[in-house]
């Protein structure tokens, strides 16, 4: 994990001082509301429906047990004792007091955490793959590159007032777990002709009102040119992105309007002028960044029986292993999901006690570190296989062992109308109704892998466009309805869903989901996942089944 030196620490302290001054002058009436707005947003502070919301960055999802304990302390001291993991590997507090936010930021700075640019029209938290450094399909660990980009983008003087927010994701694996194709910039680490490392650069992906899959604008960018190339893209966007309409201000609209060819040409022209300039990465810097992400001290020859068993509850343990335990590139080790999706809890929500518990599990089983996923779960990335039975018992006690990872009830869900002032509809109660309806684990296992994503409005924080099943809350004359989409995918086979048809009342949603799953069961060919069947047979059989009665 990256370790802050005195430069990094000084910068954070100075940022806290700055935000304290800004907050005090706002509270004293010396700073106008519209001027404070972008300043507080660039520190992650929204004014929400019920209270301010503070979004804290978890750069590329990495957290230490020390940081988890600090987050637990903060939620206890400054909030109502719980926090929410977001769909961009961040964590949000829902009830902080504006007056106390500078103190919260000061506490975070003590553990090298911050909320810089977690919101606002600027470069946001860099997201990545929760299995970085441990997966078997990885070309190169993306985390050193994420950290290089994090530092470059932090308080970048030129790009603090962009037309709109700007999100960058980096993956080092073929099986893209960072949804890079739906980001403003998606970076895929690839190897060049002589095995040198570089990036395939995608631009203009995104969700929101106008969902778009990103376009490749450079097939191979040698790694040393990463920052000069990013700077060229950002400069072109900053100068030419639309500023007259916030719904048309994302880079995807510019790429579409110009065509990817013209956009690429413009970026190349800009880049050629700055290429090989001071922002060109040095071998020393690349080596420095990489030095923080070396493999932990894995034990050699960790004897592990082929089949781990729990004599008391064999079925439950096996299920948990099947769903929540993932392969690791190091023999004798595995990655374990702590599910934050038990029925009855808002997806991604954790109590302060659970944050303490995650820290404890991290210390006891995974070298004191965890990763947060964009699916709103937590991963212990370096667990000894032979520790699985003991870990399972503890995780179960703490409420993290719901064996539903990757299944229907492992939903991605935004805070929705219960908290968010942008939402058109509630999303958490819909998620809960679905979880209650599908509580039969045997059925869920039979259905297998399926992603269900729920957004309370078209801003798409719940990533509904890229769910195999997507649910979007819409408002019609003051009533909440839910539109259902099929065919989305977030991985390397990224696709945007299509709307099934007219929307439904909240109360109808679980039944509609049940019918969708029944169509899948009726049509699937041995071993086919929901997404594959749905793609093979199209959307029509689903439409016919669901809207048949009404017709």
């Amino acid at each position, binding site marked *: 994990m990256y370790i802050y*030196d005195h*430069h*990094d620490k*000084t*910068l954070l302290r*100075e*940022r806290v*001082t*700055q935000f304290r*001054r*800004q907050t005090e002058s706002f509270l004293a009436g010396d700073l106008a509301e519209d*001027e404070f707005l*972008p*300043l507080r947003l660039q520190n992650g502070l929204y004014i929400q429906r019920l209270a301010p919301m503070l979004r804290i960055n978890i750069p590329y999802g990495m957290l230490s047990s020390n940081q988890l304990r600090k987050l637990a302390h903060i939620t206890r001291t400054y909030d109502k004792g719980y926090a929410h993991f977001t769909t961009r590997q961040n964590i949000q507090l829902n009830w902080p007091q504006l007056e106390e936010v500078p103190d919260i930021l000061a506490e975070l700075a003590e553990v090298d955490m911050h909320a810089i640019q977690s919101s606002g*029209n600027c470069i946001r938290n860099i997201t990545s793959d929760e299995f970085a450094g441990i997966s078997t399909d990885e070309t190169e660990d993306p985390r050193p590159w994420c950290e*290089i980009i994090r*530092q*470059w*983008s*932090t*308080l*970048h*003087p*030129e*790009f*603090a*007032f*962009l*037309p709109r927010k700007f999100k960058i994701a980096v993956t080092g694996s073929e099986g893209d777990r960072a949804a890079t194709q739906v980001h403003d910039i998606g970076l895929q680490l690839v190897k060049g002709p002589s095995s040198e490392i570089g990036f395939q650069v995608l631009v203009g992906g995104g969700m929101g009102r106008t969902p778009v899959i990103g376009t490749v604008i450079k097939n191979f960018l040698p790694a040393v040119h990463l*920052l000069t190339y990013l700077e060229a893209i950002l*400069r072109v966007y*900053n*100068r030419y992105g639309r*500023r007259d309409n916030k719904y048309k201000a994302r880079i995807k609209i510019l790429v579409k309007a110009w065509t990817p060819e013209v956009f690429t040409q413009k970026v190349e022209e800009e880049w050629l*002028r*700055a290429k090989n*300039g*001071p*922002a060109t*990465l*040095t071998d*020393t*810097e690349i080596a*420095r960044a990489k030095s923080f992400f070396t493999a932990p001290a894995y034990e050699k020859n960790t004897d592990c029986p082929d089949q781990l068993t729990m004599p008391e509850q064999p079925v439950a343990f096996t299920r948990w292993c099947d769903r929540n335990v993932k392969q690791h590139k190091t023999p004798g080790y595995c990655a374990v999901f702590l599910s934050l999706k038990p029925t009855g809890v808002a997806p991604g929500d954790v109590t302060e006690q659970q944050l303490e518990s995650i820290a404890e599990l991290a210390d006891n089983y995974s070298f004191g570190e965890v990763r947060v996923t964009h699916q709103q779960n937590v991963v212990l990335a370096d667990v000894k296989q032979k520790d699985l039975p003991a870990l399972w018992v503890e995780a179960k006690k703490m409420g993290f062992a719901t064996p539903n990872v990757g299944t229907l009830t492992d939903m991605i869900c935004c805070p929705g109308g219960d908290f968010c002032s942008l939402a058109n509809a509630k999303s958490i109660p819909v998620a809960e109704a679905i979880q209650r309806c599908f509580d039969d684990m045997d059925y869920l296992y039979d259905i297998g892998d399926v992603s269900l994503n729920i957004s309370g409005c078209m801003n798409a924080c719940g990533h509904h466009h890229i769910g195999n099943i997507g649910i979007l809350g819409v408002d019609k004359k003051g009533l909440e309805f839910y539109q259902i989409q099929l065919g989305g995918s977030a991985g390397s086979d990224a696709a945007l869903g299509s709307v099934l048809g007219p929307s439904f009342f909240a109360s109808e949603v679980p039944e509609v989901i049940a019918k969708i799953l029944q169509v899948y069961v009726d049509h699937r060919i041995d071993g086919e996942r929901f997404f594959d069947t749905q793609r093979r047979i199209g959307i029509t059989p689903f439409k016919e089944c669901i809207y048949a009665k009404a017709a």
Partner: protein
Amino acid sequence: MQKLLDKDGNVLSEDPWQIMPRGFDGMLNSDHMLVPVQYWLDTLPDSDANSVCNDQHASGIWLDSDIELEPLADHISTWDCIGIHFQTFMDGRGFSLARLLREQYNYRGELRAFGNIIPDQFYYLARCGFDTFLLEDYSPDFDPLPYLNNFTVSYQGSVDQPQPLFRRRT
């Protein structure tokens, strides 16, 4: 009260420049007239006006943030002052223009930000190459220093410090 400040935190008692309004089409009859770029473009073919422009001891233009610099390329170094107008402080294009002028057109004269800017932008403006800021609602007890000196560390290179931290880190 309108007041000119500089990137070192000085509140300047005098502003030598007179910013001529958009649509200005009068005569350049005094030194230090900062004319809209359109005026300069319109009078460019007219050699007299152009020479008047260039014969001044100090000449300058101001730009809106959506300007293309390429057509001005040959003349940029001849101006003593270039103003960049911020229609709203949320419009970040001026930051890119400033860096382009400094880094790609090697402009060395005064670079001024005016229009709708806020003190919390001074630091970023200075980093991007601005020398002066024309603050519209200055009050005499205002101290610009905390806005300019808040940070002693910056990660990325820019005009004020072209070397990124990774080339300076010790």
